[in-house]
């Protein structure tokens, strides 16, 4: 096994990973960065984000408003010190991207334009038409090419963290093109490996979002925090789950049920003004909108389509010019994949799994409890998103905390003790053995596709928009069973070069571990908060659950749960008020 020595190893080269790499390169040009990703950086799923990134810039907006929107949007489960830092850094980071060439949409006067977004009191979402994530990712990737200290390892699949003396000192990875295991020895490691939407059957996420980073940290003993909070985006295309940005509604699109009725007014989100009113109706938060769909479906007021039940997103009144200018991708996607041109037709939509609020437990410095290990982006949970992330906060989050992860990783790399090379090698051998064992495994009668599909089904039924004890219990048991069956999966393809059968199998392994944390955290949170809505505990219970859940890996059995107080600085938990009475 080859050992590649570096100073900072970064796992994942999406928005957060690239931002971290640039932060290291800028603050410490003498340190070597190994930027390791299972895909080429521009394939990372940041690319698919559409709507934009929040940061206070406009006259009349205030940091305090952004703070309050975020905290209330997260149903008071956000750490307020982190939110405070986040909202202050947001405009700085977005301006930095502007300086790096990001083609933000502009006002006539040349200033960066902002659009309204769900749950936000004022317009503060910077956007680049409806390809904001694409432009952010490409700007970061292209900018990263400037720095000679950033060495990329594209298409390397990281398998395990290398922990020696209780300190994270590297990561093992399989080079996809050779099948060789490589050992990265690093003074600091940053995980920026993205989310886990693929554990669900119907998601906006790309196929690469398979919980790899979360599972790696989790197995190494770092807790996963608030995993029960899974965001459903209210407007995905049926069939494929392709995202139609909240920007559709920010620009004035409305949601109607089968009677053409703006049903959101029945769920404390009214009045149904003919113009977009911030924090009301279609500009309510995502959890509330997705839950409203669920209720409409129960009332039989959704539309039956060949892809299942849907409601309609109506953008026709926006006109062709505005749609072409602000929502060109949406138009293309809707016309191509469901045959509905938003300029002339209603577009069928339904809620779809979009984002994991939970993730690797980090503090405000993006540091995990394990020395030398940092995490940022969707795989991490700081937490600024609490129980429900507001749209357009995540792109900003990966910039703010990606940078922070980079800077704190530099600090640690400078002060870290001498690496324990023999122990690192030994840990590397163990990691290699895990993969070799997979190759050596005999046919145990289990099929990886079947296991993945059963996992998808059980996650939807037990960890969907509404949850109940029985279905969650079933899901916990099912995941446990699947994990056991997974140990009997064998590889159909035992070759070395670009073996995607091996890759997909390892990914399903990661997802099963993270899925277990999701289901088990959910069943233990006996309240309803944000995206975690229970039919058996319908109220929020601040007395018992104004706390972060921490799931600890326990091997093949259920995780151990622990809880951590939420950091409250100046906003005491209150009612989340949207609609006409929202302030």
């Amino acid at each position, binding site marked *: 096994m080859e050992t590649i020595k570096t100073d900072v190893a970064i796992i994942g080269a999406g928005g957060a990973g690239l931002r971290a790499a640039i932060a290291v390169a800028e603050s410490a040009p003498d340190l070597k960065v190994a930027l390791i990703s299972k895909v080429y950086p521009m394939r990372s799923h940041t690319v698919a984000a559409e709507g934009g990134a929040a940061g206070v810039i406009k006259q009349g907006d205030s940091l305090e408003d952004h703070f309050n929107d975020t905290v209330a949007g997260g149903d008071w489960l956000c750490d307020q010190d982190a939110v405070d830092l986040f909202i202050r850094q947001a405009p700085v980071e977005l301006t930095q991207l502007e300086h790096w060439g990001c083609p933000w949409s502009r006002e006539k006067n040349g200033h960066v334009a902002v659009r309204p977004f769900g749950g936000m009191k004022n317009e503060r979402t910077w956007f680049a038409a409806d390809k904001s994530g694409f432009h952010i990712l490409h700007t970061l990737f292209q900018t990263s090419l400037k720095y000679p200290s950033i060495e990329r390892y594209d298409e390397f699949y990281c398998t395990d963290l290398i922990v020696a003396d209780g300190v994270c000192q590297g990561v093992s990875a399989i080079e996809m093109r050779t099948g060789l295991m490589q050992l990265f020895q690093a003074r600091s490691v940053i995980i920026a490996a993205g989310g886990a939407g693929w554990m669900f059957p119907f998601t906006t996420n790309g196929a690469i979002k398979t919980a790899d980073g979360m599972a790696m940290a989790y197995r190494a003993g770092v807790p996963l925090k608030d995993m029960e909070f899974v965001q459903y985006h209210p407007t995905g295309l049926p069939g494929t789950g392709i995202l139609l940005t909240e920007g559709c509604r920010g620009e004035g699109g409305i949601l109607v049920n089968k009677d053409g009725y703006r049903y959101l007014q029945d769920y404390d989100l009214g009045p149904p003004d003919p113009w977009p009113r911030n924090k009301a109706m279609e500009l309510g938060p995502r959890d509330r909108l997705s839950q409203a769909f669920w209720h409409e479906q129960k009332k039989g007021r959704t539309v039956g389509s060949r892809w299942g039940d849907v409601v309609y997103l109506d953008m026709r009144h926006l006109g062709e010019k505005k749609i072409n200018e602000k929502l060109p991708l949406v138009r293309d996607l809707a016309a191509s994949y469901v045959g509905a041109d938003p300029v002339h037709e209603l577009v069928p939509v339904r809620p779809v799994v979009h984002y994991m609020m939970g993730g690797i437990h980090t503090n405000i410095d993006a540091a995990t409890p394990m020395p030398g290990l940092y995490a940022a982006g969707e795989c991490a949970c700081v937490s600024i998103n609490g129980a429900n992330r507001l749209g357009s906060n995540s792109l900003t989050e990966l910039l703010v905390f990606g940078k922070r992860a980079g800077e704190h990783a530099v600090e640690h790399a400078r002060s870290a003790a001498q690496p324990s090379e023999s122990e690192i090698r030994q840990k590397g051998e163990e990691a290699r053995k895990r993969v070799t064992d997979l190759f050596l495994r005999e046919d145990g009668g289990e099929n990886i596709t079947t296991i993945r599909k059963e996992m998808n089904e059980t996650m939807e039924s037990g960890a969907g928009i509404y949850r109940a004890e029985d279905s969650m219990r079933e899901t916990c048991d099912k995941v446990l069973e699947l994990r056991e069956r997974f140990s009997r999966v064998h590889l159909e393809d035992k070759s*070395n070069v670009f073996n995607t059968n091996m890759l997909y199998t390892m990914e399903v392994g990661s997802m099963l571990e993270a899925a277990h944390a999701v289901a088990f955290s959910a069943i233990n949170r006996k309240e309803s908060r944000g995206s975690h809505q229970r039919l058996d505990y319908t109220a929020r219970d601040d007395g018992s659950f104004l706390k972060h859940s921490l799931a600890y890996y326990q091997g093949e059995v259920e995780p151990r749960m622990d809880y951590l107080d939420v950091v409250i600085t100046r906003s005491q938990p209150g009612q989340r008020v949207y609609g006409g009475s929202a302030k």
Partner: protein
Amino acid sequence: MSRKPYVREISHTTWYLARRRDLLHMAQEVTSLFIGIYTIMLLWGVKALSEGPGAYQVFLDALGSPLVIAFNWITFVIMLYHSISWFSVTPKAMPVQIGEEFLPGGIIAAGHYIAWVVVSAVIYYLAGGFNG
């Protein structure tokens, strides 16, 4: 190392036959040969003109030979293809932005087509083509 990337060789002489798009491109490239031959013919005419009526008559007689006439008709068609394909891509080379918007490529191309017709008509007129 078990890598063994496979390089697909392409024929350096016949690659353009596989796809219509490439064939049309090669046809465009080949128009240049005809333009070259015709230009040399034109140069010969100028030479003949400079040498006096006798030489020029030899030139004119040559133009009247069936072989040359046949070649010229073919070249004429090829020239039309050159003109059409050349003008149709002009907007790519010279986009025109007025205020915020770009002038649609079709308008730029259409402008060229119109100018082409006008120029051709003027030359034809000056050569007395409309007198007969």
